[in-house]
C-alpha cells in the first residue's frame, strides 16, 4: 500500500510491499531512513531548518526535531540504529522570492546533513538542490529501493539493489 507523507508529516513501515512517498517536493526535504537488513523504512516531509518553539504540534516540519524523531520512529518499527542509512531528496530553489526564505531548500539540506552526521547516520544518496521539484518513493521490497522522479521524467533508482551498485548522487 502506498502511504503519502504530506508536508510536516512522517511515516514508517516494516511491511513488505508498502511504499512510502513524498510527492511534489520543492524546497522541502524528503528524509528517508532505511535499515535494509531488517526491512524497515521511515520517511519525513521536512519543511524548515529549525523550530522557533521547543514543542510544536508537528515536529517533523522542522529539521532539528525531525531527525531525532524520525530515527526514533524507525527504531520503534524494528530498525537497528547502527544499520540506519539515510537519503535526502528535494531542497530545490524553484523561485527567487528574496527575504529570509532565500535558499530555504539549501538550508534545509545543510541542517539535515549536519544533524544526521551528529547522530552518526550515514547519508548514502542524495538528490537535492537545482530548480526542479521531485517525488521520492521508498519501496519496501527485498532491496529497499528508493526512487526519485522529476516532473515529466521517469522514476530513477537512487538507492537499493545489490550492495555497491548505487548510482552516484543525482543532482540537478
Amino acid at each position, binding site marked *: 500500500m502506498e502511504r503519502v507523507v*504530506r508536508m510536516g508529516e512522517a511515516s514508517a513501515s516494516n511491511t513488505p510491499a508498502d511504499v512510502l512517498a513524498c*510527492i511534489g517536493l520543492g524546497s*522541502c526535504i524528503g528524509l528517508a531512513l532505511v535499515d535494509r537488513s531488517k526491512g524497515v523504512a521511515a520517511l519525513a516531509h521536512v519543511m524548515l531548518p529549525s523550530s522557533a518553539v521547543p514543542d510544536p504540534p508537528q515536529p517533523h516540519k522542522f529539521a532539528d526535531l525531525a531527525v531525532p524523531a524520525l530515527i526514533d520512529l524507525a527504531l520503534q518499527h524494528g530498525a537497528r540504529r547502527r544499520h540506519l542509512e539515510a537519503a535526502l531528496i528535494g531542497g530545490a530553489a524553484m523561485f527567487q522570492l528574496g527575504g529570509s*526564505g532565500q535558499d530555504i531548500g539549501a538550508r534545509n539540506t545543510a541542517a539535515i546533513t549536519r544533524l544526521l552526521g551528529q547522530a552518526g547516520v550515514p547519508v548514502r544518496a542524495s538528490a537535492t538542490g537545482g530548480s526542479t521539484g521531485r*517525488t521520492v518513493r521508498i519501496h519496501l521490497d527485498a532491496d529497499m529501493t528508493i526512487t526519485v522522479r522529476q*516532473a515529466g521524467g521517469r522514476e530513477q533508482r537512487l538507492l537499493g539493489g545489490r550492495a555497491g551498485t548505487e548510482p552516484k548522487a543525482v543532482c540537478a
Partner: protein
Amino acid sequence: MTAFTDLQLDALRELANIGSGNAGTALGSMLGKTVDISVPTAAVLPLADAIAVAGRPDELRHGIVVPVVGDMEAIVLLLFPDADARTLCGIYGIEPSTPDGRSMLGEVGNILGTNYINVLAQMVSMTLEPRPPQVVEDMLGAILESVLLGRGEDVDHALILDSSLMVEDEQCSLSFLLLPDHGGVRQLLERLGL
C-alpha cells in the same frame, strides 16, 4: 492557528472578486476575447490541505509567480494545467515549453498580477508593487510548497484566495491565487476596519 471570522473571510473574498474581475478584464483586452471569472473562494487551510485543494501534488502545472512588495507582502500565483497553457499560447501560435511560451505566460502573469494588485491597492489605500514574474513548469505540490514556504517562516495555515478565469471560446482556464503574508492579511483587514 489562524482564525478569521466569516465576516473577515467575506471581505477578503470580495477583495479577491474585485481584483480578479479587474485582472480578467485586462487579460480579455490583451487577447481580444471575453474572460469569465468564477466567484472566488477564500479559505484558511493547513498547508498540506491547501495543496490538496489545488489538485494532485504530482500533476504538471505551469506556474507563474508574481511577488508583491510594498505596504504588504504577498505572492500572486497563477496555475495552468498543461493543456490550458497550450491553448492560451496557441492563440499566438506558440508552444508553452519554449522561451517564447514562457515569456508569453510571464506576460499573462504580469498583466493579471498588476491589475489585481493595483485595484487592491486602491481599495485599501496601500502602496503595492508587483515584481517581475517567474515562470516554471513543474509538479503542483512542488510549486505550491515552495511558494508557501518561500519566506522561510513557520506557517501552519495559509490564506488562499482562489479565482478561476475562463477564456471564452477556448478550452482554457486557470487558477489565480493570492497568498498574503500573515502580517499582510491583518493589515488588509485593518484597512477595511474589520
